[in-house]
């Protein structure tokens, strides 16, 4: 929202110091995004008339202009523009002038003929960001004077405010001026209103059908209108505020809105002399001021000519093109209404048409601002239409939906207990009064009538914020609460941190790919796509599916790095997956994935061992269940009893081929919701067994179809409590071992529990182990 310093200073006696005002705005919560100084006169630039123009045969692109700057001297200037003709009055930058962009005007020649200055455009004078040639000044302008003076361009400062959603009132200068006046302890004058002497009473008929959507509709009758150009200062201010000058009536309407935050519309009172506010009919159309014909929705609020019931405006959004005032307009019907915010917001959204008016209505305007707005309208008009008269008897129709002033109680104690600082009740009252609240105090309670321009203030905390804002956030002080809570990580969070460090220790980099997938991404990595959730309004179609697996994303990252000559990488991610559930929310869980380019089944098993060790967890490998998308011969599920907590192995070579990834890729996926939430009990110490231990080396031949773990389990059971450790130290296939079999060599370290094992005890143990192995399907290798 652009706010002009000059308008603020008309409304209140603010310090003539834009920096101080900007600081105040920021401290009031009206954040200044940008501050622009505009319309600074350029000394040395004067008005001059083009006396005659000549082309030079050798310089096609430039024109020789002979100008008169009112001092009787004819100056010669080369000029590259084409929009001027003899007789035009234009700005002349005389020799020695420093232009706003820093360029100095020096005697410069083309073809040996000197130029004695420069004719200027609006851009060159710093008046605009764009122009299409020289600035042509009004024909009757005096010569030799500053064009800024001729144009009535005010040296001004624009504050571009980033307004928060609650401050509807600050969409008009008046709201901003009110806050600043209170801040600086000045009284608020408001917009200048003068000479609007009311003529004879004149009331136009208004009928409101849509009483829920339209809370108030007022029509003021203004006679004595002559449509023409605006005073220069009006056009200049509008330009600074980003609006184009149209004519004195439209400009006054716009300026009043920008000043008072009251959107308004002026109709030719001879064309539209009665009004009706209703909802649009099915299929009804309206051509708005921007020239577009719009088919209306039955929720759109329409302002109609009471006589014809034809639409003359999409209420709160934009007027009808055919009801615009014309050169012939002699009297105006000025509409100032209050519309319910939501219907206007939806209308604007439906028609993709957020206008200056709709922005204000959808935030909430003041239903009682219409009269001041009408008076200001006429005050501005009277500069160009001295006969303009605001007639008494304005029509004011209000419905039950029109906001009425609310009363809010604030206890002084509550102010203190919420802000943490004692503020005297007198101070609270004076702050609230200074921004338009009408207060009474009774004991500890300040009762305030909230002004209708502050629809955001509905309960005590809102008023406490107002007190805090004007008391100054910086003046409230800083204390630290005494926390009875001990800061710490939860068990799960602490374990997640251990996990992260193990992963880093394993040399793996954390990846963070997008959790959004394209249709087919899951299928590509061999996973089902039937339990996915979709984003209803994705940014792009490729990101419309919520992942149910971390695999597609991290494999994409792996592929990306491989194609950038980083073949040996290992990546991990800890992130959420969101499979569909039968509840309202997905079955969201946290998962871990590790992939290593060039890694194999050993890589992933070693990683899992390290993680199990660090987190004191364990799982069984179940190769009978082949995880989807993994190498059927080199992968297994990680099970805890019947529950699957993850998968381990290698990515299916077909998947890698489709993705264009070279070499093997090891993979480990674990559901962390299980692993991290466990709270392992502290391990209880055992006395060191100091009896000497012995090693039993036993090699067995066993069918490939029987997992080695079956044999290991059998040996472990047979060795019983004497077993210290069991290691598979050699696996052999080939000569001496039948096809389809392999030799598995285990080293069992055994130790007596109560005494050193004797030779015969050892022999017995070995016998038991061999018997158990035989039962498990293995044969002792000779």
């Amino acid at each position, binding site marked *: 929202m652009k706010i002009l310093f000059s308008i603020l200073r008309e409304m209140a006696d603010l310090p003539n110091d834009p920096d101080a005002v900007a600081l105040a705005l920021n401290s009031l919560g009206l954040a200044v995004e940008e501050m622009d100084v505009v319309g600074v006169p350029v000394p040395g630039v004067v008005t001059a008339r083009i006396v005659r123009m000549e082309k030079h045969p050798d310089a096609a692109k430039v024109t020789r202009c002979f100008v008169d700057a009112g001092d009787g001297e004819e100056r010669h200037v080369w000029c590259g523009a084409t929009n001027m003709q003899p007789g035009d009055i234009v700005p002349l930058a005389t020799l020695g002038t420093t232009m706003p962009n820093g360029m100095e005007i020096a005697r410069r020649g083309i073809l040996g003929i000197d130029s004695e200055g420069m004719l200027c455009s609006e851009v060159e004078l710093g008046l605009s960001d764009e122009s299409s040639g020289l600035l042509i000044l009004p024909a009757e302008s005096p010569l030799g004077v500053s064009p800024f003076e001729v144009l009535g361009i005010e040296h001004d400062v624009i504050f571009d405010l980033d307004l928060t959603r609650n401050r509807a009132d600050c969409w008009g200068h008046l709201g901003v001026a009110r806050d600043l006046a209170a801040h600086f302890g000045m009284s608020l004058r408001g917009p200048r209103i003068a000479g609007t002497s009311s003529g004879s009473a004149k009331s136009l008929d208004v009928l409101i059908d849509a009483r829920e959507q339209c809370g108030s509709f007022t029509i003021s009758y203004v006679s004595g209108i002559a449509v023409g150009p605006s005073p220069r200062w009006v056009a200049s201010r509008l330009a600074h505020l980003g609006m184009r000058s149209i004519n004195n009536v439209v400009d006054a309407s716009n300026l009043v809105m920008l000043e008072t935050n009251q959107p308004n519309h002026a109709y030719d009172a001879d064309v539209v002399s009665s009004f009706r506010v209703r909802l649009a009919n099915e299929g009804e159309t309206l051509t708005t001021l921007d020239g577009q014909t719009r088919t209306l929705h039955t929720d759109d609020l329409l302002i109609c000519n009471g006589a014809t019931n034809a639409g003359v405006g999409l209420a709160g959004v934009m007027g009808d093109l055919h009801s615009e005032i014309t050169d012939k307009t002699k009297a105006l019907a000025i509409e100032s209404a209050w519309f319910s915010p939501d219907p206007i917001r939806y209308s604007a959204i439906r028609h993709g048409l957020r206008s200056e008016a709709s922005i204000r209505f959808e935030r909430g305007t003041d239903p009682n601002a219409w009269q001041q707005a009408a008076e200001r309208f006429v005050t501005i008009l009277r500069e160009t239409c001295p006969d303009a008269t605001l007639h008494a008897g304005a029509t004011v129709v209000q419905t039950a939906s029109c906001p009425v002033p609310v009363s809010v109680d604030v206890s002084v104690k509550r102010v203190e207990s919420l802000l943490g600082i004692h503020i005297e009740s007198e101070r609270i009252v004076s702050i609230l009064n200074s921004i338009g609240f009408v207060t009474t105090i009774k004991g500890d309670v300040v009762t305030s009538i909230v002004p209708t321009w502050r629809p955001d203030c509905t309960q005590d905390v809102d008023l406490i*914020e107002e007190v805090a804002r004007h008391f100054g956030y910086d003046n409230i002080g800083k204390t630290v609460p005494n926390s009875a809570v001990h800061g710490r990580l939860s068990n799960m969070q602490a374990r997640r941190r251990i996990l992260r460090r193990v992963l880093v220790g394993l040399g793996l980099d954390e990846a963070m*790919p997008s959790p*959004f997938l394209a249709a087919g991404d899951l299928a590509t990595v061999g996973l089902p796509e039937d339990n996915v959730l979709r984003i209803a309004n994705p940014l792009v179609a490729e990101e419309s599916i919520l992942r149910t697996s971390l695999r597609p994303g991290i494999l994409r990252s792996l592929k990306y790095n491989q194609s950038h000559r980083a073949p040996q990488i290992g990546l991990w991610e800890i992130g959420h997956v969101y499979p569909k559930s039968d509840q309202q929310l997905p079955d969201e869980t946290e998962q871990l994935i590790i992939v290593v380019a060039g890694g194999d089944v050993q890589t992933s098993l070693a990683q899992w061992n390290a993680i199990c060790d660090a987190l004191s967890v364990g799982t069984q490998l179940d190769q009978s269940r082949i995880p989807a998308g993994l190498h059927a011969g080199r992968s297994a599920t990680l099970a805890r009893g019947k529950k699957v907590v993850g998968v381990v192995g290698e990515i299916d070579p077909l998947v890698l081929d489709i993705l264009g990834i070279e070499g093997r890729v090891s993979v480990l996926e674990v559901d962390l919701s299980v692993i991290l939430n466990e709270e392992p009990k502290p391990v209880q110490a055992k006395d060191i067994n100091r009896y000497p231990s012995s090693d039993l080396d036993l090699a067995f031949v066993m069918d490939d179809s029987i997992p080695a773990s079956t044999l290991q389990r059998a040996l472990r059971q047979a060795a019983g409590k004497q077993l210290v450790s069991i290691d598979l130290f050699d696996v052999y296939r080939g000569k001496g071992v039948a096809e389809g079999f392999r030799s598995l060599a285990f080293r069992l370290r055994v130790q007596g529990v109560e005494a050193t094992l004797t030779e015969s005890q050892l022999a017995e143990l070995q016998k038991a182990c061999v018997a158990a192995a035989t039962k498990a399907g293995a044969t002792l290798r000779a």
Partner: protein
Amino acid sequence: MTSASTPEHGQLAQALADGIVQIREATTSDQLRTVVSALTGKKGPIASIKSSLGKVSDIEARKELGQLVNDALAALGVATDGRSRELRAAEFSSQIESERVDMTEIAMSANVERRLGRMHLVTQAMERLEDVFIGLGFQIAEGPEVETDFYNFEALNMPPSHPARSMWDTLFVESEVDGSVVLRTHTSPVQIRVMQDWPPPIYAVMPGRVFRKETPDATHMPVFHQIEGLVIDRGITFADLAGTIESFTKAFFGPGFTSRLRPSYFPFTEPSAEFDIRRHDGTWIELGGCGMVHPHVLRAGGLDPDEWSGFAFGFGIDRMAKERHGINDIRDMYSDDVRFTEQFS
């Protein structure tokens, strides 16, 4: 003491003197071993003197001579140990010399390359932030990333069709009731979940992933991270909020940094503020939003606003990482490009 000089005395002194010379003159450990076994062995000079002890009739003289024999053996032992250490040192020094390597050459070889992995910059920043808040007495809460409209908006004082909802460009998840499930646009829904699940007093921070319908550019990502803080206790004030922000600022950025609050607006806090951090050079960085928890929000969390009050604050984590490491384009941080990741140990 009878100190008679018997022939045995003379032989012993001579054997000791000779022995020490031989030990000193040994040039290798092997030679030393040979010399020593010859000197102290069964056929050695000391042994023969020892064996003649029996012939000494005087008990006192025999005792004395016996003691002298033991002293001689001990002296030879000391000399042997000393010489042995000298010889081994010399022998190892030649071994050491023969084993000399160029350490820089080894340092550069692939065998010693044990590169640790890298945590994502966002994770690093998140852990640093968590640690600072743990130090300030906060616990850490987490919540789902796919949320209901209730937690993301309604409980945060934004009933359906509340205009302030447009402050967030929301990604909606397809569901039975249109618009009832969203990808959380902020970490604030966790506030409500914590209020519902944890008995007050509550001192918690809630880091996590959030989503907006925003086209990625150098400073925005549709998926990014925030940390939210929530304090609920009896008698919590706006001054407590300002003081907590200040403590955090000093703890996280350093003692030379300060903070300020500026009035702002959020539907879920009242009064609301933006908080800025002042750098050493006097410039301010806008960090995040905060305020006193709105009574409607306390009620949605199942708490009585007349008994409990509190404050909340929140800010972006990605930006902290971006600032800390001087990253120009936030998209680089999400590229998973090892060439980028590798820089940050």
